[in-house]
């Protein structure tokens, strides 16, 4: 308590020191939260793709934004291959062709027959409101929304929403997964096929009926059969099939995000170092200013250890206060930016308990270390010399 009182009597110096730490920790919290979000996205994707093979048409541009049209025949053909436990025909397409893509992938429509995976899907999707899709939903225009998308559209189960010109009834909202499903709309295959068919050029529309068009096949290998084995077999036997396995996803998407991640972590580390140095500098200045006071305390019987302890405790407390404020401000930025971004589907940050604890521990330890060096040298001064200091 006395320590806090003492700090409050040295308002300017204490405020400046705390401010320096606050800025460093604020940057650390914000950048770490950004890195957390990216990691969660990549981990989620990696988890989603693990143990399965995604098959798209060779002419497709990439993963996740909907492939070129294929026929349901492809799914049937794959289902007949050795080592394949289930082959689920799906339509994946952009949710809103007018809107821009959100961070970490655009909002997407995913259409498939509920239960077609025959229990092989391991990625957990749970409703927080309403229900999941059932096979009986085939033929009706219903939709289950991921957590971010549902929030953006301000939907409750029972509400109606227009997707690509068609009226859908929302029957469920999903729990947050921190990855792709959060910005997805899940609908029965037939409904998605109709939307997909409508989006195709007239020539293709005439060549293939809506109920046969799909954009991808999700293949679950039989247990004991490697996904790469199945992928090779599909590419060999199925015309124009392009495959993506979990391992390949980790390599492709993982390495791309790793670079992005490294940049962000680099910025966070730089802000740490800069923040850390400024803390050490301020702390050193603040101790140097008090050389005379240290001389007084030494003269009236304060031991070196005691003086160092006093200064270091104070430095640690300043670090902790700066850390708390920095964490508070960082948290505020994260919440505000996420809320502001939610309407456009851009949820950029994820502040975890780990990040918060690290930020506090870091600022406190940094404060202690920054105080230790000048405190040690100040306490070693000859008391008479320290007393002469102006």
């Amino acid at each position, binding site marked *: 308590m006395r320590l806090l009182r003492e700090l409050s009597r040295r308002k300017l110096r204490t405020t400046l020191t705390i401010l320096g730490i606050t800025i460093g920790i604020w940057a650390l919290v914000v950048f770490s939260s950004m890195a957390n979000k990216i990691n969660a996205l990549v981990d989620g994707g990696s988890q989603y793709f693990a143990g399965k093979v995604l098959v798209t048409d060779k002419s497709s541009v990439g993963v996740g934004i909907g492939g070129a049209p294929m026929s349901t025949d492809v799914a049937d053909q794959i289902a007949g291959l050795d080592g394949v436990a289930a082959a689920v025909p799906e339509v994946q397409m952009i949710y809103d062709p007018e809107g821009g893509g959100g961070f970490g992938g655009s909002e997407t429509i995913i259409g498939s027959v509920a239960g077609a995976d025959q229990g092989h899907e391991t990625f957990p999707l749970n409703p927080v409101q309403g229900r999941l899709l059932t096979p009986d939903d085939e033929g009706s225009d219903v939709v289950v929304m991921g957590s971010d998308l549902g929030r953006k559209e301000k939907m409750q189960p029972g509400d109606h929403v227009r997707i690509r010109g068609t009226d859908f009834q929302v029957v469920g909202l999903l729990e947050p997964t921190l990855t792709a499903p959060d910005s997805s709309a899940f609908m029965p295959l037939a409904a998605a096929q109709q939307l997909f068919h409508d989006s195709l050029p007239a020539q293709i529309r005439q060549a293939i009926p809506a109920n046969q068009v799909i954009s991808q096949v999700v293949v679950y290998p039989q247990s004991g059969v490697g996904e790469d084995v199945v992928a090779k077999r599909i590419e060999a036997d199925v015309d124009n099939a392009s495959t993506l396995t979990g391992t390949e996803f980790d390599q492709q998407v993982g390495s791309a995000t790793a670079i992005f991640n490294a940049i962000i972590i680099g910025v966070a580390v730089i802000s740490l170092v800069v923040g850390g140095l400024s803390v050490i500098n301020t702390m050193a200045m603040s101790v140097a200013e008090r050389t005379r006071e240290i001389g007084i305390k030494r003269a009236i*019987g304060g031991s070196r250890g005691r003086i160092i302890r006093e200064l270091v405790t104070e430095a640690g407390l300043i670090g902790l206060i700066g850390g708390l404020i920095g964490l508070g401000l960082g948290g505020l930025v994260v919440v505000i930016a996420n809320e502001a971004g939610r309407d456009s589907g851009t949820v950029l940050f994820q502040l975890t308990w780990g990040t918060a604890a690290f930020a506090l521990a870091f600022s406190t330890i940094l404060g202690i270390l920054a105080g230790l060096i000048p405190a040690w040298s100040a306490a070693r001064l000859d008391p008479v010399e320290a007393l002469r200091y102006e």
Partner: protein
Amino acid sequence: MTAEQAIEPIAPQQPATLLEARNLRKTYRLSRRNQVEALRGVDLDIHRGEMVAIMGPSGSGKSTLMHILGLLHGPDRDGGPPPELRINGQEVGSLPDRARTRMRADTMGFVFQSYNLVSTLTALENVSLAGEYAGVPRGRARDAAMAALGWVGLAERHGHRPMELSGGEQQRVALARSLVNEPMLLLADEPTGNLDSARSQEVLQMLRRFNRERGQTLLLVTHDSEVGETCDRIIHMRDGLVDGVEPRSA
């Protein structure tokens, strides 16, 4: 509580000589060619209960002597007969820093010309800090500090910080701080140097009173002959040596 009630005489202890110094030397090496011989071999005895003034022109080494006697500096070991410094019969000249610090806290009180109070602490906290450094628990140190502020007539001002007090008041707080552990030896370096004559007299009379009533041994450095007049003895210094001792019967 009045000042008189709070003061109790210190029980007489052995031996009669509180402080014995022999061959004290100190050379400051300011640069390779510029050395100042502040003390060039000082011998000194201070008796228990004495009030002694050390006087001399500036640069005569009186402050350095005070710092060595107050264990803030060690005497130089080289270039002459080995220095000896005994307090209460105990050799202290060669003690390590930790033991000297302990000794300062337990047996000495310091008063400086420029008060040297900690500016962020209140009068009470300044005084009680000295108690805490001597190992007294915080609560008791606070009570003792309050009593010490009573001795110097500043009990009412205990919550004020140094900048809210006049020079005379600050010096009285410093005096209370030097007394709070009831030290055997009080060392005062120009205690009235920054005060006008009325405040000077006030502080001086307080010092005299504590010396008389409590048998507190008092050693003060001054170049004010009026201050010297109030003491039992005056030790004159010149060029780093004792130039003469003038006994007085105050």
